[in-house]
C-alpha cells in the first residue's frame, strides 16, 4: 500500500481536483483524474476538453481545480496543450521562466479523443510535444446525454444508437484508439482502467517520465450512461478486464506488455450483465450478437498476446 501513501503525499492535502464539483454521484472520472495527477510528482497543469469533467467542475465563478486548469473547446484539447507546452519550452529556452519542471496533462472524454478531438491529438503526437493525453473513456458522449461515440462498443444502446423494435444498439465496432496511438510510434502508450488504480498509477508515472507524448486510455464507468448503480462500479470495470474486453497493457517505446493477466477466460456476459445499455443483447434472440462480440474479443486478445511476446 505504500504507493497509495506516495499518492497521498504527492497531493499534500490539496487534491488536484477537489470537492464541490457537480459530477454525478459515483462518477468514475474523478478517480481517473486524481490517480493520474497524484502519481506525478512536481507541478502539473491540466487542459480539459468539453465534456462532463469540464462542465461539472468549473461552473463560473467557482472551480473544483486546485492545479492550473484550462478549457478552450471540445475538439482541441491536444492543440491547446501543445501550445502551452511550446510556450513552456520557448520560455525555458529564453530563461524567462524558472521553477521545477512542469508536467502537461490533458483529460478528455472518448468523444474528445476518438472522434472530434482525434485530429488535434494525432497532430500533437506527430509533432512530439511532451505531454500526457489521458482519455477517460466512458464509451459515449455522456455530457450531452449518452450519445454514441467511436468508443461505444458494438451492441451498446445509446440515445443515437438506441435499441428498439428494430434497432439493436450500435452496429459498428469500437474504434481501437489505443492501437491508433501506438501506430503513432510515440514513446509511451497504455490502456488502463479506473478500478485498477495501482496499474493506472504506475502507467501515469511512466507517461510523465516519457521524453515525448504519452497516451493513456482509461476505461471509466458512467453509472448514468451505462445504467448501473454507482456502487457497482468496481465489479463492472473489473469485469471489463477479466473478460478481456479491455486488456490492460502498455507499449513502451514500441515494446508491448500485458500489465495484468486475467487468470482465466471469463465469458463476455459477465461484462454485459448488469448494464442497461447491454440489456437487449442478453435477450435470447440476440445470442448471435453476443457470440459475435465474444469472437471479436477472443481474436483481439490473441492478436494482442502475440504482439506482447
Amino acid at each position, binding site marked *: 500500500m505504500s504507493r497509495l501513501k506516495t499518492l497521498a503525499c504527492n497531493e499534500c492535502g490539496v487534491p488536484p481536483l477537489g470537492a464541490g464539483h457537480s459530477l454525478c454521484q459515483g462518477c468514475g472520472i474523478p478517480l481517473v483524474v486524481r490517480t493520474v495527477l497524484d502519481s506525478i510528482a512536481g507541478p502539473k497543469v491540466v487542459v480539459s476538453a468539453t465534456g462532463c469533467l469540464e462542465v461539472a467542475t468549473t461552473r463560473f465563478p467557482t472551480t473544483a481545480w486546485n492545479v492550473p*486548469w484550462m478549457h478552450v473547446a471540445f475538439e482541441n484539447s491536444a492543440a491547446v496543450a501543445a*501550445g502551452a507546452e511550446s510556450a513552456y519550452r520557448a520560455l525555458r529556452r529564453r530563461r524567462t*521562466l524558472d521553477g521545477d519542471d512542469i508536467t502537461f496533462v490533458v483529460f478528455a472524454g472518448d468523444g474528445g479523443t476518438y472522434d472530434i478531438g482525434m485530429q488535434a491529438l494525432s497532430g500533437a503526437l506527430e509533432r512530439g510535444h511532451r505531454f500526457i493525453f489521458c482519455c477517460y473513456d466512458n464509451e459515449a458522449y455522456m455530457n450531452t446525454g449518452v450519445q454514441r461515440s467511436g468508443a461505444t462498443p458494438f451492441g451498446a444502446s445509446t440515445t443515437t444508437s438506441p435499441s428498439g423494435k428494430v434497432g439493436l444498439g450500435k452496429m459498428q465496432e469500437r474504434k481501437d484508439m489505443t492501437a491508433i496511438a501506438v501506430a503513432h510510434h510515440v514513446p509511451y502508450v497504455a490502456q488502463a482502467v479506473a478500478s485498477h488504480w495501482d496499474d493506472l498509477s504506475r502507467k501515469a508515472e511512466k507517461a510523465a517520465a516519457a521524453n515525448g507524448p504519452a497516451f493513456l486510455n482509461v476505461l471509466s464507468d458512467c453509472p448514468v450512461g451505462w445504467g448501473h448503480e454507482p456502487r457497482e462500479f468496481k465489479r463492472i470495470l473489473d469485469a471489463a478486464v477479466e473478460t478481456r474486453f479491455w486488456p490492460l497493457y502498455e507499449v513502451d517505446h514500441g515494446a508491448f506488455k500485458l500489465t495484468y493477466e486475467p487468470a482465466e477466460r471469463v465469458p463476455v456476459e459477465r461484462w454485459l450483465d448488469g448494464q442497461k445499455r447491454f440489456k437487449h443483447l442478453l435477450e435470447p434472440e440476440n445470442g448471435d450478437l453476443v457470440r459475435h462480440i465474444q469472437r471479436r474479443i477472443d481474436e483481439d486478445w490473441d492478436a494482442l498476446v502475440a504482439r506482447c511476446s
Partner: protein
Amino acid sequence: MKPQLLTGGEAVAHAMRQIDPDVVPVYPITPQTPIIQVFASLTADGRDHTEIVNVESEHSAMSAAIGSALAGARTMTATSSQGLALMAEVVYIAAAMRAPIVVALGNRALSGPINIHCDHSDSMLIRDSGAIQLFVENAQEAYDVMLLAVRLAEQVLLPVFVCQDGFTITHSAEPVRLLSDRKVKDFIGEYAIPNSFLDVEHPTSQGPFAMPDYYYELRHQQVDAMSAALPAIDELGDELSGLTARRYSVVEEYRLDGAERAVVCLGSTAGTVKDVVDELRDEGEPVGLLRICAFRPFPERAICAALADVDEVIVLDRADAPGARGPLATEVAAALFGSDIDLRGHVYGLGGRELHPEDIRAVIDGRSDRYVGLRSAACLA
C-alpha cells in the same frame, strides 16, 4: 533606413522577426504562405528563436495560440480564408479568454467556389467574434501595423487581426522602410498578461462554464475592451508616428475637406481610390475618401464626424451577404442613421475581380451597377 523592395507578406515576416514572438503556431494557406515561409527561413538561418509549431489545421493553430498566449508567451499566427473559417469557432473563444494573439490575415475569398484571390468575406465572417481587425492599404502599412498590433493586443487583451489584401498586398513588392530591430524592441516592450496558466504557485482555472447568471456579463467584458481599443489605437498610432513619421488612426480622411461626395472603403482599394479622387479634384469635382482602418472596433463616431458635411456617401464592399446588403454598407448606414446624407452601397472585387480607376469613376458618377464589374451576360475575354 532606406526603403527595401518587399511584398506585404515579406514585410510582415520581417516585422515578425523583429518582434521575435515566443511561439508561432501556424498552418499554411495561400496567400498567407509567403509570410510564414519567409519567417521560417529567417528562423532557419538562426536570426530568431521563435518556437514555430507546424500544426495540422487552422483550428489547432488558433487553439495552440490560445494555450501559448495564456501560458505567458508572446504568440502570433497567420492565416487566410478557409483557414480563418476553420478557426472561427476558436477566435471567439480567444477573445473571450482575452488572449492577446496577433494574427496576420491575408484576406482571400471564402469558398465556394474555391478561389485564392482577395476579398473580405473571411474578415466579415468573424466580425462578431470580439477580435480586433485593422485593415492596411499597402506593404508599408502592413509592416507598421503589425508592430502597433502587438502593443494593442497586449494592452486591451484581445486578439488583433492585421488584414492585408491577399496578393494585392501580400504578393506585391513595394518600397518598405523597416525600423531598426532596437526601435522595434523598445516600442513593443515585454509581454505580460494578468494570469499565466503556468503559474503553478497561483493556480487559476481558465475557460470555465458560464450559466445564464454570468455569461452575459463575461461576454460584456469584450464590449468594454473594444471601447478601450478605439482610443488606444489612436494613442499607439501617435506613438508609432513618432518613429515612422507616418500616421495611423481608426480612419483615414483623404481630401474630405469640402467634399460633397465621399467614398468609404477598406484596404488596398483605398490607394486606387486616392488616385481617382486626385484626378476628380483636378477636374473640379469635390470628392473625397474615408478609409476605414479599424473595422473592429467599428469607429462610428469618427465616421460620423468625418462624413458630417458630405451630401453623398458611396460605400464599397469587398464582400457580400446573399439575401442582404454588403456588410460594410450596412454598418456605415447604421452609423449615419438619422442624418440626411444619401448613401449608396456597391459590392466589388469578389474573388479577386479587379477594380480599376475607371470603375471607381463610374461608381462615383453613378454610372455603375450595385455589383461593380459583375458580368450579367457573356462578353469577350
